[in-house]
């Protein structure tokens, strides 16, 4: 399991993450919600070891997290790919880099699960739609069967209908593959619909960490309440009689 224990990150004199502790079991989904500048991306970078922690540590099953080869799905699907390579080569990169072998059926199985059509992988990033590119991004993250997948605003570049569809596909694959998913998002609706737990990040601190169903029914902090109110006011969540 993923354990982030008492992690702090400093940039110069400012603390961008303060004493963060979270844990995440395989098969579970944790959504980290918060506004821009709250430290969401820094948290992802700290977990991946891309920024050094000034205190605390991040482990997967008591080992440094990098040894479990976590995967990342990025926000901007098109720019997440090398524009000169076919999508297939980009997708297979995690496998090549690690030198592992993936059985032949796995790519087809994942493609089917992500509704990626035959032939799409032979195109280049600029030749597919943003929604398609993001599904291929997810495929690349999952191809080498990582136990932990980090999603950095995976849906914010997509339109509303595609967002819900893609979220559905991610969730189905998680059921089959059993990876732990940490989703960073500003969209409480997405978090509420697909995460097991919601962590509210504000100014580098975790303000609230609650089971997703409980959160949208009764947030414990005023800030959590305002996030919920906003989600209803923007139609991400809806009350029905």
């Amino acid at each position: 399991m993923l354990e982030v224990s008492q992690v702090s990150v400093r940039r110069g004199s400012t603390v961008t993450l303060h004493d963060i502790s979270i844990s995440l079991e395989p098969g579970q989904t944790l959504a980290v919600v918060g506004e821009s500048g709250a430290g969401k991306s820094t948290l992802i970078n700290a977990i991946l070891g891309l920024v050094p922690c000034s205190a605390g540590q991040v482990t997967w099953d008591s080992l440094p997290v990098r040894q479990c080869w976590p995967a990342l799905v990025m926000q901007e699907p098109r720019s997440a790919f090398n524009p000169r390579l076919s999508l297939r080569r980009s997708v297979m990169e995690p496998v090549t880099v690690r030198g592992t072998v993936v059985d032949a059926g796995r790519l087809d199985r994942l493609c089917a699960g992500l509704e990626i059509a035959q032939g799409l992988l032979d195109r280049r990033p600029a030749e597919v739609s943003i929604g398609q590119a993001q599904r291929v991004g997810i495929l690349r993250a999952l191809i080498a069967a990582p136990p932990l997948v980090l999603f950095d605003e995976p849906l914010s570049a997509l339109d509303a209908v595609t967002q819900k569809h893609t979220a559905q596909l991610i969730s189905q694959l998680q059921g089959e593959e059993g990876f732990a998913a940490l989703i960073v998002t500003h969209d409480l609706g997405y978090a509420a619909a697909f995460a097991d737990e919601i962590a509210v990040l504000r100014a580098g601190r975790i303000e609230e960490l609650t089971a997703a169903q409980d959160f949208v029914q009764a947030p414990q902090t005023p800030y959590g309440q305002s996030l919920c109110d906003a989600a209803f006011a923007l139609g991400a969540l809806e009350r029905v009689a």
Partner: protein
Amino acid sequence: MIFTATGLSAIRSGRTILHPTDVDIRPCERVGLVGASGSGKSTLGHALIDTLRAQGVRVAHVPQSPDEALDPLRSMDFHWCEAERALGLTHDASRQKKLITTLRIEGGDLHKRPWGWSRGMQQRFVIAMALIGTLDLLVMDEPTSALDPVVAADTMDLLDRYLTERQTAFLLITHDLGLAARRVARVIVMDDGRIVEDAPTEQFLLAPVTQAAKSLCAHRNWLELPC
């Protein structure tokens, strides 16, 4: 007087992205223009603004992203004064202060250039600029996409009040039917460069006709919770 634009169309590199389309909007009306990405809704918005402006209708436009509205080499104050001049107004510091306070961006330094501000504040600055003059119609393209949800909800509430007070019509262009359904009285659905449905919001949500509209309706919220 109804604002009417007829025969709006657009062709880009040989491909028709907007088939000939007529749109009319009544004064004070709130209309949502909804569709998937690539359905031609922004293009229709642009064509509508250009046509109505040519007719002398006072239209203001808030583009989807502040990058499409602000020059990175010019200060915020420069943008503001330029917008005032374009409307034939003289600089009015109290009006500027009022609008900036209304949109809660008093914290921004007007002498800085856009990139000295956060994107959310840039977007609200653009909205404030759109409200400088007296308006017949405000067109907003995905106004919430550059804003954090709490700020976005706040800004939309504030605009609701502002537009009601001034009896201004409102066209909201968005991919998000959930957002539109809460803010507009009439929904226009676009698909593949054509308007495929145009109905009052309540009626539309109950009985969407086309496939595109049905899909939008089915996916308009993430979760529905009992009251």
